[in-house]
């Protein structure tokens, strides 16, 4: 039977992708951020998951406002990125696991989640940046991927409570899959940041640190915020916390914190990294 072995969180901002491309790992601005990741990769080397379910939001590459799904799940054999308008270079395509994708889609629709299924799907920095951070070795990488895209572009966004429930349903769906697989769930984005408006550059360290704690020990507390609360407390893009809540919902009630790292700022963002091991 398939099993969710753990969950991880990471910021996914494009500036990280540029810093990786520029190999700025020892750069004084970037070093305190990148230094959080070796411990996460060491955990992955130990656990060796077969599949990563990556919860992210598309930032206007694969989805436009003519068809803006709340929850979209990739069901392709592979996923490629694109230049996103600012000339990003193509990465090797990410292998998918369409059989598990369809199992998830079947189980979730049957469980009253109104999924948009995507048999072709471009993945943007929201997906590729965490993948590059956790699996920098694209030659040796053996993990297959399932992208789960959540609307954080256009309000109404799904409520934090709904997102946590989606995560729980993903957890049940994985557990019901007949194949013997180790699955890790990656919650990307966040923490506090705001790109637009006169409040651009808003960061809320206290709120971020509270989220880093609560997401581990009491995620339900975070589901009581409204989207509007999250925008107010974490900035317009800080609402990406809902992506973490989906990850956390997919894990069991009790998790072990393997690793945690927080750094301000990278570009306009408070960056939070967590590695959580699921209770066996």
């Amino acid at each position, binding site marked *: 039977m398939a099993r969710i072995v753990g969950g991880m969180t990471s910021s996914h901002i494009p*500036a990280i992708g540029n810093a990786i491309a520029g190999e700025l790992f020892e750069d004084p601005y970037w070093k305190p951020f990148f230094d959080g990741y070796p411990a996460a990769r060491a955990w992955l080397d130990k656990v060796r998951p077969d599949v990563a379910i990556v919860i992210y939001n598309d930032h*206007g*590459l694969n989805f436009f406002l003519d068809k803006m799904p709340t929850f979209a799940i990739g069901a392709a054999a592979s996923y490629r990125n694109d230049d996103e*308008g600012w000339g990003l270079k193509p990465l090797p395509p990410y292998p998918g696991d369409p059989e598990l994708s369809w199992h998830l889609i079947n189980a979730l629709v049957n469980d009253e989640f109104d999924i948009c299924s995507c048999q072709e799907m471009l993945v943007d920095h929201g997906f590729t940046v965490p993948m590059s951070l956790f699996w920098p070795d694209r030659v040796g990488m053996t993990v297959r991927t399932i992208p789960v895209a959540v609307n954080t572009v256009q309000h109404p966004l799904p409520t934090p409570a709904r997102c946590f429930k989606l995560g729980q349903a993903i957890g049940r769906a994985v557990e019901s899959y007949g194949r013997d697989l180790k699955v890790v769930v990656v919650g990307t984005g966040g923490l506090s940041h705001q*790109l637009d408006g006169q409040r651009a550059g808003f960061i809320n360290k206290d709120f971020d640190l509270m989220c880093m704690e609560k997401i581990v020990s009491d995620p339900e507390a975070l589901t009581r915020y409204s989207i509007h609360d999250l925008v107010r407390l974490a900035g*317009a893009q800080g609402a990406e916390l809902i992506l973490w809540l989906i990850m956390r919902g997919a894990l069991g009630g009790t998790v072990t914190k393997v690793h945690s790292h927080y750094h*301000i700022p990278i570009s306009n963002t408070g960056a939070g990294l967590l590695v959580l091991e699921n209770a066996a």
Partner: protein
Amino acid sequence: MASPTRPEPIPGTVIFDGEQAMKGYALNKMCYSFNEARNREAFLADEEAYCARYGLNDAQKAAIRNRNALELLAAGGNIYYLAKFVGMLGLNVQDIGAQQTGMTVEDFKAKLKAAGN
């Protein structure tokens, strides 16, 4: 469940909701097209013609002409599609943050750094 009553506005923050989405549709559609290199080239070759082709209104055209993020937002622009426009011009989110807050880029970066203390 009733439609949620509109909550208190958040200063300096435009919620990109249905109202904004309706207002900005043409502008955002144009910016979305910049995902493709040939569309960026077409825009840069003749900005006015490209804006007209997407049916931008006068406020949207002026905001594009002025490379002004606050005007673009006020005209219904969504930051994620706008990012493709400003990215094409070689600007990043810190340049745009400085522009929107009326700060120098150095001051804007310093403010972000200070948030970590």
